[in-house]
Each structure stands twice: as structure tokens, then as C-alpha cells.
């Protein structure tokens, strides 16, 4: 191999260092209008009146887009995977988070667009808001989501919970020398791409739409736009592929769809670039996770079983959260083989920004919880943290929570490499460990039944 493996420069490196790379905000189109959004000022409120008349009549305003202009108002990010949509592209009669878009104005200048947004008349009836997922199950909690209630309730088998059951958790708890529980809560994080959300939509003379997009996923966005606009894919050309940072936050495509609607309605090219404040306060972010772990362990350092409760704070709407929770459930043993599992996971809605993908989606908070818990258990056992981890590390043909045999695990080897790099002296037994299938001392009775047949990934 000569090209693969070579330290070649970036394909787009020269463009990046000379200011020549064209990002969406750099696209110049004659006659381009500029857009601004009217967003909810409340966390939870009914919209009792929405009057865009004064705004639409302002000089320089070419289109005011509201829910009434969207051919298919509700379309789910995971509709293709059979998960119902729950989020209107623009709020109709209810706002469920502060910052939720209600209208988009396209005008000659962004100043006029902002002034027109301010001229839109909205009356709200404010309602109590819910922010703490731990309170979402209460009978007297405000109802957050019209489609699902306060937590997603349409998993396979009509369950309202994502479950993993493996082995015999009760037996593991009975057999344990120590039962260690802990609660881990990770926060909401904004992706903070240096390029804020931005879109340029152009109505073409042949009736098609060209959409310059900063999406991380042009075809996904094409599908979302065409669904909301009820157009065949041939009627929209997404132009993109060059993104000023995404980190998961540019998989949502609301800016593309709304800009396209404004371009359609005005008949002119429209640019919508979010301000940094909008990006920070209204764009989908990494969701918070509430995780409770109970490990059943032996005094010599084996993890016999794990009970885990996870509550994912989705914010006001589902977006990708069910996907994220399922991924989370599949990885809730982390880098370890734990044969007896009882996992319950919920996607709970609150009156916060709908959360979305971010680097490590579904797992970053999980890894954080698992690894602090592992350290606590090792400390409770009085055991060296390397030894505890290496002993329980997943190995070839150990099985994951969903019964897939690990093909090429390297937990053992990365730990050994890290120890060497940090000057940690591992004992002979730990230094000699490999990822090979368990046998001898490394295959105690409780792990025999979970060995798979191999051949998975």
C-alpha cells in the first residue's frame, strides 16, 4: 500500500489556507433576500393568536412563512425507521421550548427581516414547564409531547421502555459479595461549530429548488426537505459537502426546509444564517442523560451483573433520541463482559431544546458513567483500577448486551499500551493477558454461558 496509509495533505487544504474554500455563507447569488426567525419566548405556551399581517405589509418584506405554508408540517427524523414524527416544522398552536421557530421572514436585508419578526403579533397563554426528567413520570407533571406524552411509548412490542435482559440478574445479585450503586448525570452540550447554521435556497427557472446546505448529510436532508415540501427528490438539488464543523449538530435540517419554503413563497433566492446566539440557544444540542447503575461484584473483582436505569432528556421533541437510547442500551456494559443484565431506558420529554446528535451520540455520557462507576467499584474492592478493568475486559467471543460476539476487541491491549505509555507497572499476569477467548482463570463459571460462537463483529 502506498497511498492508503500515507500522510497526504488534505484534499481541500490549499483552499482552506488561502480563504478560497466556499462555505454556504460565501455563496453569492444576485437578488438574494435575507431571513430571520421569530422564535418562542416561552418554554411552554399555547399560541392563542398569530397575526403576520403587519409584518408582511412592511416595505422590503417578501415572504412570511408560518405553519400554514408547510405542506407536511410534521415529519420525523426517524420516520424512515418507523418512528412517528412529533415535531412541527413551525409551531402552530403550541410552543414547547424557548427558541422554537414560529415564523421565518424573508426580506431585502436582515435588519428588515428582524424588524418584521418583531412586528408579528403573537399572543401566548403560558403553561407550567417541566425541566427535570426525574419528574416526568409523575401523574401531575405537565404533558409535554402531543404524540407520545411525557416519554416515548412506541418501542417494539408496544413497550414504553427500551429493555435489555440477559442472563439472570437476580441470581447475580444474590451471589454478589458487594452491590455498588451510583447515579451519573451528564449535561447538555452545544456542538459549537464555528460556522453557524446557514442555508441559501434558490428557486430555479425550471421550477426546481437549489439548496446550498451546511448539512452533514445531504441525502438525509434531501429526504427531509422533500417530505415537508411534498416534492419528489428530482425537484430539489442539494449543494453542499463542505461544512464548517458539524459534530452532529448539522444533521438536523430545519434551516434548509424553512429557507426553501421562504424561497418558494417569495420566488427569490433566500439566505438564512443563524446568529451565534441562535446557534447557542435554539439549535439542537447533546442531550442530558440520567443514569443509575447497580453492579453486583465479587470480592475478587468480577462483575457478575448490572442493573441500569437510563432516562434520556430528549427536550421537547423526539428527533433522533430513540435511536440514541437504543445505541446506548447496546453499549451499556462498556468495555467489559457482564453476563447478567437488566437495563431499562426511557426517552423523556422536557420543555428544553430538542436534543440531537453529537459526537459519541448515546455513548459519551454512558462511557462517563460506566467508567466512574468502574473506578468506584475497584476502590470499594481495594483493587488496582487496571487489574479490575483488565480482568473484566471484553475478549474475543464474549458477547455484547444484544448477544453479538466480539470479533476483535482490544480493551486488554489498549490498557496495556496506556500503562506502558504512562509508566504504570502492570504485574506479570496483567502484562501477559491477551484478548484471546477466555479460558482457565479468565473463564470463571459465571462467564461460560455468555461466550458466543464468534463470527460477529
Amino acid at each position: 500500500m502506498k497511498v492508503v496509509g500515507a500522510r497526504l495533505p488534505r484534499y481541500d487544504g490549499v483552499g482552506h489556507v488561502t480563504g478560497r474554500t466556499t462555505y454556504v455563507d460565501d455563496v453569492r447569488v444576485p437578488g438574494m433576500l435575507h431571513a430571520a426567525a421569530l422564535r418562542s419566548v416561552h418554554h411552554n405556551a399555547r399560541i392563542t393568536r398569530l397575526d403576520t399581517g403587519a409584518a408582511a405589509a412592511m416595505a422590503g418584506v417578501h415572504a412570511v412563512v408560518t405553519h400554514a405554508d408547510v405542506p407536511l408540517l410534521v415529519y420525523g427524523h426517524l420516520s424512515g425507521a418507523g418512528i412517528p414524527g412529533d415535531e412541527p416544522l413551525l409551531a402552530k398552536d403550541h410552543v414547547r421550548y424557548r427558541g422554537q421557530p414560529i415564523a421565518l421572514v424573508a426580506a431585502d436585508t436582515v435588519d428588515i427581516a428582524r424588524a418584521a419578526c418583531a412586528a408579528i403579533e403573537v399572543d401566548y397563554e403560558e403553561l407550567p414547564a417541566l425541566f427535570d426528567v426525574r419528574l416526568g413520570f409523575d401523574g401531575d407533571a405537565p404533558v409535554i409531547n402531543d404524540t407520545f406524552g411525557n416519554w416515548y411509548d412506541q418501542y417494539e412490542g408496544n413497550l414504553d421502555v427500551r429493555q435489555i435482559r440477559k442472563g439472570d440478574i437476580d441470581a447475580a445479585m444474590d451471589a454478589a459479595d458487594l452491590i455498588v450503586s451510583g447515579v451519573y448525570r451528564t449535561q447538555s452540550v452545544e456542538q459549537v461549530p464555528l460556522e453557524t447554521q446557514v442555508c441559501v435556497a434558490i428557486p430555479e427557472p425550471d421550477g426546481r429548488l437549489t439548496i446550498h446546505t451546511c448539512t452533514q448529510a445531504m441525502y438525509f436532508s434531501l429526504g427531509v426537505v422533500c417530505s415537508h415540501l411534498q416534492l419528489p427528490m428530482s425537484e430539489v438539488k442539494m449543494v453542499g459537502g463542505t461544512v464548517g464543523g458539524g459534530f452532529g449538530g448539522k444533521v438536523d435540517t430545519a434551516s434548509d426546509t424553512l429557507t426553501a419554503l421562504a424561497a418558494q413563497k417569495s420566488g427569490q433566492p433566500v439566505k438564512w444564517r443563524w446568529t451565534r446566539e441562535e446557534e447557542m440557544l435554539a439549535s439542537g444540542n447533546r442531550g442530558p442523560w440520567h443514569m443509575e447503575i447497580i453492579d453486583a461484584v465479587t470480592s475478587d473483582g468480577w462483575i457478575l451483573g448490572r442493573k441500569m436505569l437510563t432516562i434520556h432528556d430528549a427536550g421537547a421533541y423526539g428527533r433522533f433520541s430513540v435511536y440514541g437510547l437504543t445505541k446506548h442500551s447496546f453499549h451499556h456494559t462498556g468495555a467489559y463482559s457482564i453476563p447478567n443484565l437488566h437495563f431499562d431506558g426511557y426517552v423523556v420529554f422536557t420543555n428544553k431544546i430538542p436534543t440531537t446528535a453529537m459526537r459519541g451520540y448515546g455513548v459519551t455520557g454512558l462511557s462517563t458513567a460506566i467508567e466512574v462507576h468502574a473506578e468506584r467499584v475497584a476502590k470499594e474492592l481495594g483493587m488496582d483500577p487496571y487489574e479490575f478493568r483488565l480482568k473484566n475486559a471484553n475478549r474475543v467471543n464474549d458477547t455484547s448486551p444484544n448477544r453479538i460476539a466480539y470479533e476483535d476487541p482490544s480493551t486488554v491491549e489498549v490498557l496495556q499500551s496506556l500503562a506502558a505509555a504512562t509508566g504504570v507497572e502492570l504485574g506479570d499476569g496483567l502484562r501477559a493477558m491477551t484478548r484471546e477467548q477466555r479460558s482457565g482463570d479468565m473463564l470463571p463459571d459465571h462467564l461460560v454461558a455468555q461466550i458466543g460462537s464468534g463470527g460477529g463483529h
Partner: protein
Amino acid sequence: MTSTAAVSMPSSEAEAVAAVTAQPFATVLAGGTLLVPQHTLGQVEVERAVWLGRAEMDGISRSNGRMTVGAAAPLAACARLDAPVGACAADVGDNEVKAQATIGGNICSPAPYGDMRGPLLALGAVLRWADPDGTHTGGIADFAASGGARPGVLLLDIAFAVPEAGSFVALRRHHTQSLTAMSVSAVRGADGNVTIAATGAAPDACRLLSAEAVLAGGGSIAEAADASVADADPYDDVLASAAYRRRVLPVYVGRALEQLGE
């Protein structure tokens, strides 16, 4: 925002005063680090502005034990002064922002900006400002009481006695752009008296008179630090909670006094 506000560019302090106080009253543009972005984002309306960049109001001079700093002196220049003023100025923004932001602009900016009010309060600095009624002098509090920064008012300079010693400590994330959550400035004057002021301990910069009194009465640093809480009126904001501010104010007061060599 593409408002068509006219901007005049005076070439002396006197011209600047005349330009600012003429009708309709003008908004002062110094470094622009707050005004320009607010203007771009449509958050402020400017009818008329006066830019100080050529008004020769950026001098820093010392005579007879007093330091006089022109309101348009950039923070990068102020950062070369002794503590607490220098250390505080050095703590604002990164080098590019410091090169542009001015001490006058900082003083005139609302919390959580306006860090320089802390050290200047501790120093008992005298501000000189002009408005349509003439030129006035007074402390930070007097300037605020007069209505503070607004169109038609021009901060001219800031003067303070060079202290025998000064110190400055700040509660901020070790992070370049983070706003300072809380800061403590301490000054020992020629008379040996110690004055202490804080930002972020109350909604605006404040003197920590209780702590000063403990020191004046011969109390220890620890006693003074503990006493400082009585002068605080802490609050929650995005940078820190009220409880945390209350909890660590004595720590920072203690550190400022240690640094002062009390």
C-alpha cells in the same frame, strides 16, 4: 445593522466633548468592542456617533504620584500598569480584544462586563466626564449616580494616586474569552490603609468595607476575608451561582490580601 448613523471623528478632547454633547446627543464609539457587535445584530439604535480614535484621549501619564489614564487608552496599554489596574486589564479578553477595547468603554459597560470598575473603586479613582452641563469629577459611584454612560455623556479620563501596593485576583475559568465571574482588588495607599473592592460579589462593583474595617482594626487576613461576606450581595448568573460566589469570596479576598503582602 446597516443604520446610517453619521460618525464624527474629532481630533481633540475639546472637539470630542462638543461633538458628543451637541444635539441630538451622540453615542460614544471608542474601541467598539461592545457597540459594534450590538449595532451589527440590531440590538442598539444609534442616531449619531462620535469616534474617539483620533481625539488623542488615550494618553497614560504619571505626575506627583498620580496616574491619569485617558478614557480611550486601550486595555493593552493599561495592562502594563501595576496591579490592580494592570492585572485586571490583562485579564480582559485576548490580545486582539485588549488592543482594541478601551478603559473608558470598559468602565461604561454593564455587568458582567466592566471589570475595571473593581480596581478603580479600590483605588478611589476620580473620573472626569463631560455632559451638556459641563465637566464633572467624581468617583465610580458618582459617575453611576449621575446616570452613567449614555448618549451625550463623554468619559474623559481616570486619575488615581499610585498606591504603595496593589493586588488583583479573579475567579474565572482558565479560559481566554470567559467573562470574569468575580474579582477582588486590594490596594495599600501611602497612608498604609488598605482598601478592597470586588466585582461579581454584588450586582455591581462594590467596596468590601467590613473587611477593610477588620484590617484597620488590626485583624488578620483570615478575619478580614471572613468579614467580606457581609458586604456581598451575591447573585446567580451564567458564570457562577450566588452560593458559590458567597462561598469563595473570602478565599479570593484572602488571596488578594496575601498578594498585597498584608
